[in-house]
């Protein structure tokens, strides 16, 4: 219950500072990918939450199907040795993955189905 931010976040801040400038020439990818994710995959793998583009519908079964299809579409196009599934969700258009730089590049090409790639952050008790 402390006031100290997790060390990983502090580490990321330092990495973000270094990477923002590097990404300046890639506006489309920058808009889609958290800078922290880009920083992390430069040195290894990152745990991310991928936001999927899924059409809104009030029919829950249809929405669950659409989410599942979008998840499958992403996984089929990801190089399997460069990404692993952390969690799939049924009711929200998200996919939790662990990815490396190659997988991130693949995700960035999937603009038809991927809306964003955000860092899967670690939270502390308050």
């Amino acid at each position, binding site marked *: *219950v402390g006031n100290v931010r997790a060390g990983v976040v502090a580490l990321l801040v330092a990495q973000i500072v270094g990477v923002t400038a590097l990404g300046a020439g890639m506006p489309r990818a920058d808009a889609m990918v958290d800078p922290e994710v880009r920083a992390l995959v430069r040195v290894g793998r990152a745990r991310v939450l991928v936001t999927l583009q899924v059409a809104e519908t009030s029919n829950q079964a249809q929405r669950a199907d659409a989410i599942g299809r979008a998840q499958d579409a992403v996984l089929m196009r990801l190089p399997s040795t460069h990404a692993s599934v952390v969690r799939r969700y049924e009711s929200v258009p998200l996919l939790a993955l662990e990815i490396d730089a190659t997988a991130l590049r693949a995700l960035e090409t999937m603009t038809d189905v991927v809306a964003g790639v955000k860092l899967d952050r670690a939270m502390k008790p308050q």
Partner: protein
Amino acid sequence: VAPRRRRAPFASALLAVLFLLSGATLWITLPPADSASSVVMPEVRHRVLREGRVRVIAELRLPAGSHVPEGLLTAAAQSVQRRDIAAVRLQILSRLAGRSHQVLHQYSTVPLVTLDVGPDALTELEASSLWVRRVVVDSLNAPTLAQSVPLIGGDQAWSRGFDGTGVVVAIVDTGVEATHPFLTGKVVEEACYSSTVSGHSITMCPNGSTQQTGPGSGASCPLSVCWHGTHVAGIAAGNGAGAGVAFSGVAKGAQIMAVQVFSKFTNASDCGGSPPCALAWTSDIIAGLERVYSLRGARNFSSANLSIGGGSYTAPCDGDPAKFIIDNLRSVGIATAVAAGNDGYTNALNSPGCISSAISVGATTKADAVASFSNAASFMSLWAPGVSIYSSLTGGSFGYASGTSMATPHVTGAWGVLKQAAPTASVNQILSALQTTGLLITDSDSGVTKPRIRIDQALGVLVPAITSISPTQGPVGAAVAVTIAGSGFVTGATVSVGAGIIVSNVAVGAPTQVTATLAIAAGAALGARDVTVTNPGGGSGTLAGGFTVTSASAATLSLAYNGKLRDRVGPGNTALGADGTLDGTLTATLSAPGGRTVTGLRLDSSQPGTWDTDGATGYWVLGVASSLDGALLNAVGTMAVNFAVANGGSFVLFASDYQGTEFLSGNTLTLTATFSDGTSATAVIAAP
């Protein structure tokens, strides 16, 4: 991000110091020193001047800086810190030799010593700033759920019969000790989502997998910080009756879903240099919340509690992935209450509390001041008590803790109470009730003003109360206009008075008044009826036996002949129109409690002559209007009438002059009215 000015420069925002005393686990939160020049708090000086002696807690100044909770230290580092504590304590006690003092408690794991001191010893402590960080009064801390629950009106809600019974609150945290006496029998659903990530985290799910559901899966995790979920659950829904204590959580009748989402982080950089620590991946939190969402059909969830957070956001963070599931829950009436965070920010919240669809909660004291550690921002939702809250801990014990973590379950529990009272209320409706009725508290540092929850008053908005209805009775067959007085009436409210009474024309003129028309069927059962007003959120108030259906009392008619004043009908049984000859015009007045609905009329003259409102009889039409020049009420073609007349009300009749003799002075005119309840009334006059 702006920090609070009043935060102690040396301390973390939350100074929760664990110590053992007589076998009980207690937490205390020490206030910061009032000035940099003195380690002795003013209250200590005042007490020793007034009473000669004072019981104090001295916080030791460690050579390594701030004390670090042992759970965050390696075994070797723990030993070093304990050695430092003992050494500094020895220095202080040496300086006190010969001064008026008594050592009451010494501690090995926290930098504190409890003393009873006189003026000379206090002076010595003040001169020992090299070793003493501060000296505060050893205050008595009463069990604070017993204070915070009444402060927010929880006990008054219980007395109205609303304690969360039938509702489930989800505690998404470090797991819950289901066997704790404060929580016995309450945990009805469990789940665990905890990730193993190479180089970072290890799952703490009991089965060793990264997810688990079913009994035991939501058990408290094994690290030192894992008391957290049990403490939070106790605040939201603990029940003192089973634990032999005189206090309870806010929704003491509610059940609990325990969701363990924390993982054991083993990397020093993840843990601020002191592994292992417990942190929760956002992806696991989302999975835990999705489990709640998936069970919404089986369990009556009111709210989910997230006393979790991180980061600083000066504006709503609606790009946060957790917003999807928080939105899903909100769309089905389940609120997600989230801690604002303990960083002392005056213009920022943690994530996921910064998500606009979350119910973000900052912490206040029992004196209704904003807690020094609490984050605040203009887009925060509510305040709730979060300082020195006494609740359940793992190991079957109880203890104090402070934080927005403790404020949040006050809101989660409040939601349980309100959802029981207003079962179909939306998150918006309950939030609005809490925000409009809360006690406004302004954070002097940030200027942020938000409501501190008052459950009893929110109930007053969501749940109507009826004090009276007028009239209190009506006969079968009558249409009775009633006025219901009380409080908490909301536009869209419905009124019910039981079988056989159709309610229409419901109008909420004010939160204190509803009007309606009760159509009492001819076959309605006689006797007293409960009157119920139900607000759109499902909250309802009932006045037991408030309205009585009586037998139809005889209606009476009086009749007056006004002369030949208008030409509204003609000679013929369906002649609804002027014929160039003035009609005999009469006024009928009804006397009947509750009024009547007139379904048929017939006028006879002794001359003779007959007029009626039945186009099939062959009698000339009897025109009817509410006033002399009002529109005719007869149905075109059939001449039928069907109109309500209040008790004392009148209507006007028009009869075409048949032979010029029917309305001569001295003629007897007889009017017969038939009513919707099958009864009738007759009036007879002599034409003047």
